[in-house]
């Protein structure tokens, strides 16, 4: 029966072959696990409400600079320098907007190459090349996109206001030509790398798909895990340190400490502070990049922290100086806005409230006691309000973001729910280690301080070589309105 056995074996082999074709695991044995198909990221879908909200936010931040900051600063200088302050702020807004669209957006928000890529972006968006309505920009949600051009506009307003904030440290004595050069050089050399470091990342889709590879392409501060929702470090510490270094470099105003130099119009300062507060909702809530619960949280925090800081400064000043002042109240409000900036999307309302109370008091202390003790002429208190307020906010964010304190925590994109092989936007919060986060916050803050200090110094030195920094003594006495612009703020 040789033929029978051969047929049986052939039939058996055919059967095995058929089974192997049907079920790939058959040949390997039952113990081997099936190879899972890798999950895919969903296409980025643009929501009209998100686009709309981001357009409005961009306008709100523009308003913060012009006329918000312009009036806030302008009211605090002497009459003879009012026009020059307004002109400097408006000029910076215009110049920065131009260079942003030319090269700065690419520098800050595209992927770089080589060892500088954690700080310096690439050239893929130079002159706005490659913007494609079919290729949306990422937000904080998997599968949600924005029209990239609105992201460009939004981020531009941040760069502009940061640059404009810095000049407050050396108000009433800097040449206008120096301001123009500062607008170009500082925003490029100092602002863009820090913005890239803290904020640039390939987006939630990539972070969910391949977290390690996505992080490796991100900015340095982002890789550290630093939390800076709307720019406590990128904007406020950055501008505060730059202004402080400039104030020290240029020296005190003529007559500082001897001649009275009270603000010429606290009326306008209050108007400016109010516009800043209203506009700041675009700054903070707009940094959520979507019109959803995150934006609403940032809005609520921007109300309560700001108000608390105003109350806090007012009460502390009342206690220590005898009378509560409008300048103090307005300054407290701004200090609160500064401090809540990095925390706005992470804190719970009570955490934001406490942050505001602390910031108001701490900034009051730095703007009065510390400033008087050291005697530096930080004219419009960029250090006391923005650097210190930003620092308090940056560290405070590490604390108030903790879920145990009502904070929103941090999303873990590696654990997003996968459905039908596609990653969904249902991503859980990661474990929150408050101490570790506070250390990361401090690291990022100090990196910012270091980069801003050194970078700003280099920028000032370049400007000093080209046009010089400070106006002549005669020009300073006459007032920058006449000496730099040939105009008067008021012809009454």
């Amino acid at each position, binding site marked *: 029966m040789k033929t029978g056995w051969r047929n049986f074996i052939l039939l058996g082999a055919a059967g095995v072959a058929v089974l192997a074709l049907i079920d790939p695991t058959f040949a390997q044995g039952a113990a081997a696990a099936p190879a899972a198909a890798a999950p895919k990221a969903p296409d980025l879908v643009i929501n009209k409400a998100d686009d709309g909200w981001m357009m409005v936010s961009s306008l709100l931040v523009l308003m913060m600079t012009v006329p918000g900051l312009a009036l806030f600063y302008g009211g605090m200088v002497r009459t003879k320098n009012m026009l020059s302050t307004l002109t400097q702020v408006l000029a910076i807004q215009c110049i920065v907007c131009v260079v942003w669209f030319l090269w700065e957006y690419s520098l800050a928000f595209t992927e770089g190459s080589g060892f500088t890529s954690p700080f310096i972006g690439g050239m893929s968006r130079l002159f706005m090349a490659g913007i494609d309505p079919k290729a949306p920009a990422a937000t904080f949600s998997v599968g949600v996109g924005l029209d990239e051009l609105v992201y460009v506009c939004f981020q531009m307003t941040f760069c502009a206001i940061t640059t404009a904030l810095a000049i407050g440290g050396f108000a009433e004595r800097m040449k206008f030509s120096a301001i123009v050069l500062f607008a170009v050089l500082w925003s490029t050399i100092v602002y863009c790398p820090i913005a890239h470091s803290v904020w640039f990342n390939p987006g939630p889709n990539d972070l969910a798909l391949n977290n390690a590879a996505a992080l490796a392409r991100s900015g340095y501060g982002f890789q550290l895990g630093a939390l800076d929702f709307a720019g406590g470090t990128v904007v406020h510490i950055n501008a505060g340190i730059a202004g402080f270094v400039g104030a020290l470099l240029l020296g005190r105003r003529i007559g500082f400490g001897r001649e009275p130099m*009270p603000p010429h119009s606290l009326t306008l300062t209050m108007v400016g502070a109010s516009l800043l507060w209203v506009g700041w909702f675009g700054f903070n809530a707009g940094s959520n990049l979507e019109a959803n619960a995150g934006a609403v949280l940032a809005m609520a925090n921007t109300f309560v922290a700001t108000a608390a800081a105003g109350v806090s400064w007012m009460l502390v000043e009342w206690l220590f*100086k005898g009378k509560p*002042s409008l*300048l103090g109240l307005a*300054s407290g409000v701004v200090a609160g806005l500064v401090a809540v900036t990095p925390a706005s999307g992470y804190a719970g309302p009570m955490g934001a409230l406490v942050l505001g109370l602390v910031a108001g008091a701490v900034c009051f202390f730095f703007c*009065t006691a510390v400033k*008087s003790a050291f005697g530096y002429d930080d004219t419009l208190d960029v250090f006391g309000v923005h650097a210190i307020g930003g620092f308090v906010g940056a560290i405070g964010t590490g604390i108030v973001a903790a879920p145990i304190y009502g904070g929103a925590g941090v999303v873990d994109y590696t654990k997003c729910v996968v459905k039908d092989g596609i990653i969904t936007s249902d991503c859980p919060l990661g474990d929150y280690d408050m101490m570790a986060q506070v250390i990361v916050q401090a690291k990022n803050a100090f990196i910012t301080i270091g980069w801003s200090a050194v970078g700003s110094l280099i920028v000032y030195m370049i400007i000093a070589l080209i046009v010089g920094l400070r106006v002549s003594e005669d020009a300073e006495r006459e007032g920058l309105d006449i000496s730099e612009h040939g105009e008067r703020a008021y012809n009454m």
Partner: protein
Amino acid sequence: MKMVMAIIKPFKLEDVRKALDDIGIEGLTVTEVKGYGRQKGHTEIYRGAEYEVNFVPKLKIEVAVAPGSVDKVIEAIAEVAKTGQIGDGKIFVTPIDQAVRIRTGEVGTAAL
């Protein structure tokens, strides 16, 4: 002719104007000035920077007066400008060498 110059508290302007009007004075000049005498200033604080403000806002009223009316004018001003508090002001009288009405060319007392 005499120039009567009075430094008064700003809120007294309307009272003084009316009092002078009641005694027949038909014109005066007002200037906003700052000054101090025994009324000391105050301290202003702007974000930690303290300023001693020694000057207090006042108004200077100047009236050109015909000879013989000076005492009447002084009395009218002093009576309404007085509050009894420090800082009420002072009145000075200086001689006028010449006066001219620009529209008509009248000189002397006729110009007043």
